[in-house]
């Protein structure tokens, strides 16, 4: 079990505030770039949450990949696409839609919470973890998913290039 002292509880509260606030900004703001900033805030707070869970390796990976690559790539794409006001979707009653879906989703949230709290009882407890154990597991037991992931990343890169490029000059349509 996790045993937190007062300082860690305060840090947890601040990070929770950042995560929930960032994601709320993300789904409510009109400008796309402000959504991206809210997403950035949530991702940085998630990295802090991993650090709070005493999982340094995952925290650094989160900061490097999610914040450094994914969010910055999203912002670059948003700024490159540079959609004008008339190209954006018209969302007049956005807040009504968000409230209705929040009401519909809230029982699901409660159910998910109840299910998650009983989840740890169904697993056996093991030894404490550190980065060394994670590294040795990654390259012994999980080496096949690791290799499959590298193939997936390469095919995603090729697919992204092929989808996003202009049409070839030979194709007239």
């Amino acid at each position, binding site marked *: 079990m996790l045993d937190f002292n007062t300082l860690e509880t305060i840090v947890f509260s601040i990070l929770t505030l950042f995560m*929930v606030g960032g994601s709320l900004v993300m789904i409510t703001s009109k400008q796309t770039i402000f959504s991206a900033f809210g997403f950035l805030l949530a991702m940085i707070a998630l990295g802090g949450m991993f650090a709070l869970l005493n999982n340094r390796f995952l925290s650094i990976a989160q900061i490097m990949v999610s914040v450094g690559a994914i969010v910055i790539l999203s912002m670059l794409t948003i700024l490159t696409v540079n959609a004008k006001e008339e*190209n954006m*979707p018209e*969302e007049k009653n956005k807040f009504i839609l968000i409230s209705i879906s929040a009401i519909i989703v809230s029982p*699901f949230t409660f159910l998910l*919470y109840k299910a998650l*709290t009983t989840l740890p009882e169904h697993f056996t407890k093991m030894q404490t973890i550190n980065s060394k154990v994670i590294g040795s597991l*990654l390259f012994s037991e999980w080496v096949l998913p690791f290799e499959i992931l590298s193939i997936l990343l390469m095919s995603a890169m090729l697919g992204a290039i092929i989808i996003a490029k202009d049409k070839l000059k030979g194709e007239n349509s």
Partner: protein
Amino acid sequence: MSADPFFLLVAILFSIGLIGVASRKNLFVVYMSIELMLSSVNLLLATLSQVLGDANASVIALLLIGVIAAEAALFLAIITHLYREKRTLDSDKFKNLSKVK
């Protein structure tokens, strides 16, 4: 403090992502909501890893970060392509496969 607040946070984040996918039309916001749902699963894996003392969950979370990166690359390429086709970011305008016109 037990791990329950972490589970509550995971549930709330997943639901916010679900609300974003269900109620917004902007393609970028839909994409970021999907990312948020995936990241909440990541937080769940990290929490379980710490509660159970099991390093396998950390390894799965690490692999999931790679999957999220691949998904981001493809999704952004698709958004760029769709914008170039129709000059709009409205997800309601892309219904070529739908029967309802």
